[in-house]
């Protein structure tokens, strides 16, 4: 949550996150660049720019694979949410590693020619009509451009400026970018490789990404949130189904999700989508009388959908009432930040 934009709102967990990330990346590169050549029994060494380019390229692939596994892992098991918390730093770091890979390759393979090296990347091989010998570099160029755009727009300023839905759609480009990276690797270095170790790593990595996303999607559709019944006022659940300090999520007839929270024995309904990154508020909990998003900790007063002053984020609220023990919600959302009186839950209903 923010009242003004600063480059990074550092806290202890972000420092730890970045330190671990840097340690992993540094270890990968040190082993690949410094240690591995001594383990190879080649008559002549691989040229240093090629070896280094491969090191940074392979590292970027592994980083991107891990990044894309974090999201579905966190959907499948909340304990992985801390890995999601500062994932954007991981993404920005990946871009720098990928740029370093591209620099080594362009300055070596495409340099020293009368043709400008950047023009040469696009013009040296134009056999787009065949798989063998396809100009795989184009996939790398596409992926790198996407990663740079995503990195440049990763800050909350851009999310506010573009609005969360547009920002979210823009950042879905990570999936075509990852597919392009896999194609870049598969049609390039893997077609030449006689040793199949990297092939297996690429296969396992990309299959892990695909499988985890399918599992998360399956879990979501099968999921814990119920489909609200009715058209006018819709039934969400029984009041006693909602644990104190937590919420029940339901999908409304229009497709939006509502989160009905119980706080101090009172029921309130708010949008399930956090104003920050559409995080699932209903999977959060009430801390200090405020609903707290599980993704990045954005907080809202459940009675009016507003972040506590001086923060200014607002989410839609819903009118709510009890019919017997059934929790009923008006599916027409109130404008963000609209106060709605909470509904007390009679003790006999909770009993």
């Amino acid at each position: 949550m923010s009242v003004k934009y600063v480059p990074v709102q550092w806290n202890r967990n972000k420092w730890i996150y970045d330190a671990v990330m840097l340690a992993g990346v540094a270890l990968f590169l040190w082993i690949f660049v410094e240690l591995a050549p001594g383990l190879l029994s080649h008559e002549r060494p691989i040229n240093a720019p090629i070896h280094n380019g491969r090191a940074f390229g392979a590292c970027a692939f592994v980083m991107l694979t891990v990044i894309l596994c974090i999201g579905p892992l966190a959907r499948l098991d909340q304990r992985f949410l801390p890995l999601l918390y500062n994932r954007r730093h991981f993404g920005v770091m990946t871009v720098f590693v990928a740029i370093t890979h591209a620099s080594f390759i362009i300055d070596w393979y495409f340099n020293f020619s009368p043709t400008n090296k950047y023009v040469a990347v696009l013009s040296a091989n134009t056999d787009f009509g065949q798989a063998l010998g396809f100009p795989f570099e184009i996939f790398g160029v596409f992926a790198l451009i996407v990663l740079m755009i995503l990195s440049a727009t990763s800050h909350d300023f851009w999310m506010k400026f573009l609005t969360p839905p547009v920002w979210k759609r823009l950042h879905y480009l990570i999936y075509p970018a990852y597919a392009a990276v896999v194609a870049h690797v598969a049609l390039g270095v893997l077609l030449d490789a006689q040793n199949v170790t990297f092939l297996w790593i690429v296969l396992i990595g990309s299959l892990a990404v695909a499988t985890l996303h399918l599992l998360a999607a399956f879990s979501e559709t099968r999921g814990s949130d119920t489909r609200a019944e009715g058209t006018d006022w819709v039934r969400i659940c029984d009041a006693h189904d909602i644990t104190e300090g937590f919420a029940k999520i339901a999908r409304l007839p229009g497709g939006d999700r509502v989160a009905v929270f119980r706080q101090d024995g009172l029921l309130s309904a708010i949008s399930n989508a956090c104003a920050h990154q559409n995080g699932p508020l209903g999977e959060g909990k009430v801390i200090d009388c405020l609903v707290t998003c599980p993704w990045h900790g954005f907080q809202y007063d459940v009675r009016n959908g507003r972040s506590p002053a001086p923060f200014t984020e607002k989410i839609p609220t819903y009118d709510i009432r009890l019919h017997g023990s059934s929790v009923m919600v008006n599916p027409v959302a109130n404008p963000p930040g609209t106060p709605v009186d909470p509904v007390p839950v009679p003790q006999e209903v909770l009993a």
Partner: protein
Amino acid sequence: MSDPKKPFFVGYLPAPPDLRLFLIVSIVSFVVIFGATGLLIGSTQDDPGPGAGQGRQTVTGVVEMIGYPVIHVTQGTDRIPTGRTLILSSGGKNGAVGRAAPLEGQVVQVSGLLLERGELDMVQLRGGNNGLQAADGNGAVPRPKPLGRWKLAGEICDGKCYAGIMRPGRGLAHRACANLCVAGEIPPVFVSSQPVEGSDFLMLTGPDGGVMPQEGYDAMAEYISVEGEITRHGDLLVFAMDPTTIEVLP
């Protein structure tokens, strides 16, 4: 609904005690995965081949243009015996056609970096007259010896990268670089899957003995079969390929 029994992490608050063991295991796993993949990928790189630079050499010989320039050595060194035929190129992705053509048939002094891979010897000329200049002495271009029409299987590479200026300097990942080199008039070579007259490589020309035709670029770095006339120039085999016979092999 989140599970009330599970620890709830908020980024700007201390991690819940119940989550710490899981986080420690995650951190260790993360670092181990990165280290292990770095080791696995880094230590299983393919051998880039034996090509390499052999230091600066200065020899005298006679220039012959066979689409690309070669020199038949008349006065060699300890490393380069008299009678050897060397392919010539310039620095970077540049050939030496423009520099050598005016000196065709003449005795010259050649100086530059010797690149060596098996039977393939190439000299990357130094800049200006230091690399190539007319010299005193006698010499003649050896008479070419036709070896007939052959069908070969193998790969088209640029002679300079294959000879060791880049390691690895062949394969599909290197295709764009090879195209740039050959477009810059660096002599292409055909790396045969079976030795021909004792040599694994042949300098490649077009069917008329000129530069490699466009079809050669389209087949660069692929495993192909192609027919053509082979001629021995000194101790160098030259393959004048017929581009209409190129077939990509599985």
